[in-house]
């Protein structure tokens, strides 16, 4: 059985989605009577546009497909309201239909930077893509407990920490993409320098030009070496 405290240090920075899945795995251990699903809606533009995409546009990021369908058909008002107002929903003991299994819906925002693609021409800098997510908890049985106030605060804190992680990850990802672009773009003028050094080195009758060509050659080799070394530090 998995232990909530068992984890190993990752070699690379985990993506928000990976962190989310790990967190859900651990919460499943803490609350074994709860089924967890995470739903997401992706798109560019403002939150209102995303809310309009709600019907049938949700992706299942974690959990069982069956619960996604149930949520869409029976709880669309709650999920739409959570996204629109960016406020969590918690089931209270004295509210809801008898036997209601939905215990909580907590909205969160994820920002993904568009990946820099080397092979195509892009005029624009990488643009962010907003993804709104819903963390949903379902009781396995109507007699299972719902979340008390203290647990609700804990869950809100977890989601708030996750929001912060997404923001930092997005910043690092954006810078990483920009640096990769700079690195790529530097290699074109470096090619010009390398070729000019070759032309100068071929000036058999001009000793001075030959020496300058050799110096340029050495300098461009060093710059190429620096760019190669720079590469390993780019990917987050």
């Amino acid at each position, binding site marked *: 059985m998995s232990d909530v405290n068992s984890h190993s240090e990752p070699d690379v920075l985990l993506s928000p989605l990976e962190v989310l899945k790990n967190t859900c795995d651990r919460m499943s251990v803490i609350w074994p009577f709860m089924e967890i699903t995470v739903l997401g809606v992706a798109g560019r533009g403002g939150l209102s546009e995303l809310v309009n995409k709600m019907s049938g546009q949700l992706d299942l990021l974690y959990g069982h497909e069956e619960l996604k369908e149930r949520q869409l058909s029976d709880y669309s008002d709650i999920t739409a309201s959570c996204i629109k107002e960016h406020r969590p929903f918690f089931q209270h003991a004295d509210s809801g239909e008898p036997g209601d299994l939905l215990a909580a819906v907590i909205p969160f925002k994820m920002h993904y930077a568009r990946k820099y693609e*080397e*092979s*195509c*021409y892009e*005029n624009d800098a990488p643009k962010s893509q907003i993804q709104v997510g819903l963390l949903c908890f379902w009781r396995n049985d109507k007699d299972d407990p719902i979340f008390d106030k203290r647990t609700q605060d804990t869950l809100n804190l977890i989601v708030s920490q996750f929001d912060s992680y997404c923001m930092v990850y997005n910043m690092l990802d954006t810078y990483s993409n920009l640096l990769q672009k700079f690195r*790529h*773009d530097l*290699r*074109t*003028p*470096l*090619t*010009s*320098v*390398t*070729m*000019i*050094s*070759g*032309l100068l080195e*071929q000036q058999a009758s001009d000793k001075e030009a030959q020496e300058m060509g050799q110096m340029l050659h050495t300098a*461009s080799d060093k710059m*190429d070496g620096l760019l190669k070394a720079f590469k390993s530090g780019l990917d987050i």
Partner: protein
Amino acid sequence: MEQCILIYEDDRDLLELCKIILTSPGRIIKTFSRCENIISDVEQFHPDLILMDLWIPEIGGKRAIELVKEDKENDHIAVILFSANAEIEQISDDLGADDFLKKPFDLMNFRKTVEKHLCN
């Protein structure tokens, strides 16, 4: 018979440098900093060789070469891709390009690669 080379590169310094290096008697060099009109360029100049940068406006070198290779009339034209892209060898294979030059390449390598495909 005159040889014709079309060079596509959006860095004007490198474009001009390639032209200077390859210019010789009996050879026509045409340079372009955009590639969206590649099919009409090919129809106009009937090149023996195309040198294509991957990252170039407006449609990108990859698409431009696909357009050339899709046409049976043009698929005999030798194509050399150049790019700083780490995947250039794979991209070159996928596109059916005849050769590639990974930036930064040097003068000797550049000349040797071009001459090899002009001789062929």
